[in-house]
């Protein structure tokens, strides 16, 4: 099967005063009809640039983008405008025409296509029904909530009867509840109209919620891609792991060879020293052994910790524990 979107060796370089900025480096990706393809990355990773290359709002510096079997770079200005009618797009800030009513916003792409006004209005009402906003047809965007504005934007996209829908951080300005309902609507559109959807986001939750596939972009490079299930089960790249654990890099196996034994005295047992240290260094330690002993009628806690592999980090942790007035003793060959 031919992919509906084929990205081949895409490069995008911006000229700025400080020199060249490489927004995308050699990105290749195939997206098939019916997919809901998530493209995820931290802000500034190049994902918005990538999605703008899919309808040539941004022209790539090198590489090919083929959409609906048309190589976009080979199209004339007029042909490109025609091709764009098959590629809908919704945005983080909705981008509705503020001086037009809801129904006139939905009519806009049909005006561009040259439909008769009456016919356009009838169709627009249908699409507003699909997104559940037919009673707001006469309202103006300023009177709507964020979620309602995005619904209008979706109705507007449906009005051009696209094969592909690009979503550029479409839920990033919405609260979690509204995000969920918009994502449900997108899934419904994907199912009912067979529209292929590309979702740009920085939130893994969005990908988990609706995507069938995901690509991870970091510093303009495509670091990993596959089905959502695959990536979640076994993320290979560091970036994928970081996104999946959102901020924390979970350590599945302690490789550190250094171990320390620490002893708590009564007065230091109220402060959660170990917990605070883990938070401070954003790196876990492994508790290998813990016990309390009665020494001459005074309760003493002792604990053996396995420190991370990083020498310098280990030294810092020992200093931290010493600073918390604990007795710290390094153990040789404990593990």
């Amino acid at each position, binding site marked *: 099967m031919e992919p509906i979107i084929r990205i081949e060796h895409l490069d995008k370089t911006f000229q700025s005063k400080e020199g060249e900025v490489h927004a995308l480096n050699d990105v290749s990706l195939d997206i098939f009809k019916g997919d809901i393809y998530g493209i995820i990355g931290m802000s500034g990773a190049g994902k918005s640039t990538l999605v703008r290359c899919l309808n040539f*709002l941004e022209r790539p510096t090198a590489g090919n983008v083929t959409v609906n079997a048309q190589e976009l770079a080979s199209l004339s200005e007029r042909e490109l405008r025609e091709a*764009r009618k098959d590629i*809908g797009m919704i945005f983080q800030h909705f*981008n509705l025409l503020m*001086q037009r009513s809801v129904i006139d916003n939905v009519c*806009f792409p049909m005006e561009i296509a040259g439909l008769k006004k009456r016919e356009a209005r009838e169709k627009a009402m249908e699409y507003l029904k699909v997104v559940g906003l037919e009673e707001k047809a006469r309202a103006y965007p300023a009177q709507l909530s964020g979620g309602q504005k995005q619904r209008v934007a979706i109705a507007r996209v449906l009005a*051009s009867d696209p094969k592909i829908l690009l979503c550029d951080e479409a839920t990033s300005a919405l609260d979690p509840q509204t995000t969920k309902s918009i994502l449900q609507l997108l899934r419904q559109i994907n199912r009912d109209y067979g529209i292929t959807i590309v979702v740009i986001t920085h939130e893994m939750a969005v990908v988990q919620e609706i995507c069938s596939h995901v690509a991870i972009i970091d510093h303009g490079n495509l670091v990993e891609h596959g089905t959502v299930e695959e990536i979640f089960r076994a993320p290979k790249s560091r970036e994928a792991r970081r996104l999946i654990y959102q901020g924390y890099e979970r350590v599945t196996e302690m490789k550190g060879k250094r171990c320390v034994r620490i002893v708590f005295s009564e007065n230091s047992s109220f402060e959660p020293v170990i917990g605070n240290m883990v938070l401070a260094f954003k790196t876990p330690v492994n508790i290998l052994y813990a016990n309390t002993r009665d020494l001459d009628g005074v309760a003493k806690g002792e604990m053996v910790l396995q420190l991370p592999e990083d020498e310098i980090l280990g030294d810092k942790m020992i200093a931290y524990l010493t600073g918390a007035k604990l007795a710290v003793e390094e153990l040789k060959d404990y593990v």
Partner: protein
Amino acid sequence: MFDEKVIQMIIEGIGETLYMTLLPTFLGYVIGMPLGILLTVTDKDGIRPNAAVYKVLDFISNIFRSIPFLILLILLIPLTRLIVGRSYGSNAMVVPLTIAAAPYIGRMVESSLKEVDHGVIEAAQSMGASTWTIVFKVLLTEARTSLIVNATIVTATILGYSAMAGTVGANGLGAIAVRYGYNRYQADIMIVTVVLLVVLVQILQGIGMMLSRKFDRRRT
């Protein structure tokens, strides 16, 4: 003092002032509107960047705007004679007033159109809208409130210019103020004309603000 003749003169003065304000403003928009649109569209962040066109238009409009109006009026006397046949009177003043207004209006239109959110333009582009459609159905309609407010400012400025032109051959309230207040030391007539000029600007301002509010759909 305020006999029938003076009152008659002042009423005619109001008429000529309005004529010298509204006609050049209108003609100024005929030239300035396309100029402002071109400046917006061909700018480097515009929808059809064209450095050459932008630089030429930018240069021309800056030159005309940097010449003080009274001097421009005198400089343009030969052109005025060529077009109108003479260099004094209200009709003659329409020429320099229009030429002074056009680049100024161009800049005002440019600044209004540049207020339009880039995201909305991008959305229209993503739908396959042509440059033409974006100019007429996105830029001009989305910016209409700002265009109306700026048109009000432009009209008040041109009214001021027309009064200035009273010193060198124009008619109207400005000319009356100069003739009676400056040449004949009749302060009372001058004060009346000044009050009338203030009232005219207030009325124009009021109409402009009302229209801009009426056409604004951004309120909740």
